């Protein structure tokens, strides 16, 4: 039995890391910003932590802290030019930002190790730490959803004119969403650096962007359960389909297409809506 669990532990580690990144993507979408920069912020966090650990021998706590702050800082700076853009233009700009980070990373070989990446990062983060941080991040996003900020984010996402007419500052809230997103991505990027011995630039490129975005689209964009469920499905299902060998990615693709077509709100949000509708029907039945 313990062998069975040990076999799946790396998968659970991956889940915890990717839940953090999925929440980082979730929170900007929630505030009505179509930013895809999470992959870049994660890379910035990972490299900040990695360089501190390898070159300066810094303590992991310091490394994770600096990685988080760096992700947040870069996100806040990036939010200034992005505030002038909307929708798909924001998406294009943030994809460009990921490419810029990737290129800078490869060219500044003396600092980042270039295409070879950073090696020999001491492994100091285990499953327990990852789980605690994933749980904390989930709690924070859940708390935001329940409070004043969640209400403001929802309004901005659905109708900016209404938000402004009710006194909600769009610029301020979107910058805050960016800061949270950057901090989360930086945090989980630096955790990944301390978890996996080595990091390389391509890890934080287009592929990660697509992976993280799929979690949110697959799971749902309205409830915090969405990214949790999305990451769980999309990480476990390819594992279950392992006997299909190289056809696994086909299963992944088919699932994504089916969900986008038949449950455009995502698996979790569709389920939540169905429960709500049933409750309302029951209530109407009682009063009639």
């Amino acid at each position, binding site marked *: 039995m313990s062998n069975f669990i040990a076999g799946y532990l790396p998968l659970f580690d991956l889940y915890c890391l990717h839940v953090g990144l999925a929440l980082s993507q979730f929170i900007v979408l929630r505030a009505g910003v179509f930013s895809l920069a999470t992959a870049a912020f994660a890379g910035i966090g990972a490299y900040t932590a990695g360089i501190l650990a390898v070159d300066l021998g810094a303590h992991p706590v310091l490394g994770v802290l600096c990685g988080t702050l760096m992700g947040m800082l870069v996100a806040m700076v990036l939010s200034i030019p992005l505030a002038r853009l909307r929708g798909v233009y924001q998406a294009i700009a943030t994809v460009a930002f990921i490419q810029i980070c990737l290129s800078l990373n490869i060219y500044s070989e003396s600092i980042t190790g270039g295409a070879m990446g950073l090696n020999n990062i001491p492994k100091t983060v285990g499953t327990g730490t990852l789980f605690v941080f994933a749980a904390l991040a989930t709690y924070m996003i859940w708390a935001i959803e329940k409070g004043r900020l969640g209400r403001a984010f929802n309004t901005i996402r*659905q109708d900016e004119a209404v938000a402004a007419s009710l006194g909600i500052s769009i610029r301020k809230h979107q910058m805050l969403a960016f800061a949270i997103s950057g901090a989360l991505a930086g945090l989980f990027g630096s955790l990944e650096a301390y978890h996996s011995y080595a990091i390389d630039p391509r890890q934080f490129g287009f592929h990660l962007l697509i992976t993280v975005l799929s979690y949110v689209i697959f799971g749902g964009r309205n409830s915090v359960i969405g990214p949790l469920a999305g990451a769980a499905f999309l990480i476990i299902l390819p594992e279950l389909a392992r006997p299909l060998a190289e056809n696994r990615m086909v299963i992944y693709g088919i699932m994504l297409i089916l969900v986008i077509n038949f449950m455009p709100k995502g698996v979790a949000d569709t389920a939540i809506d169905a429960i709500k509708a049933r409750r*309302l029907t029951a209530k109407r039945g009682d009063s009639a």
Partner: protein
Amino acid sequence: MTSLKLTNLSKRFGGVVASEDVNIEVPTGKIIGLIGPNGAGKTTIVNMITGMLPVSGGTIHVGDTDITHAPAHEICRAGLARTFQNIRLLGEASVLDNVMIGFHRHETSSTLASLLGLPASARETKALKARTMELLAAFDLTEFSDYPAGGLSYGHQRKVEMARAVATNPNFVLLDEPIAGMNDVESDALADIFEGFAQDGKGVLLIEHNVRFVAKLCSYVYVLDGGKLISEGTPDHVLSDPAVISAYLGGQDA
């Protein structure tokens, strides 16, 4: 007594003059009408007051606060609420949530409390929910509180929008064609609500097409045509003004 005051307000789109030297004053506790035929520039005025369009000339004051060049979200904080010509609700959110966001400018819990889910944030959410339910009761909307706002009938959606505007606790309310597309029963129900606003001491600026509705409700009416005020006064005075009649029905040489 404070008032919402437009002084020599002008808007030019390049060479096109959309409004010119418009002077309007809305005192608190009164319903003031702004009428005019299609294309007269009513919506331009609304958009300038609410900060959606930059002002070309003149000033807008709420009480002593100059809001001429204030961004849209600060105008609400000065105590001015609005409704939209085509109702704008958050369609998928429940009626309760739609009205609750109206309280935004009175929310006091810190950003940190909201980020960390501290008790202050939960207390505030609970208190706001209770206040929202009171407001819904006042608007006869209690039974719809859990339904998605987008599924309500037109008249009810308009009421939800009014409740949301009231939740900001404004001194002045700007109503942009509130009864467009409504039948007489629905518009009478809204008329009662507007009179309630005035009795609560709010100043109401009612922008409308429907001359009969305006004449019934307003104590003072401004008439706009071609971006200029062509008449003002009591409803009776305005409606018998030859300039107004010719603007609406066409002049003798038209």
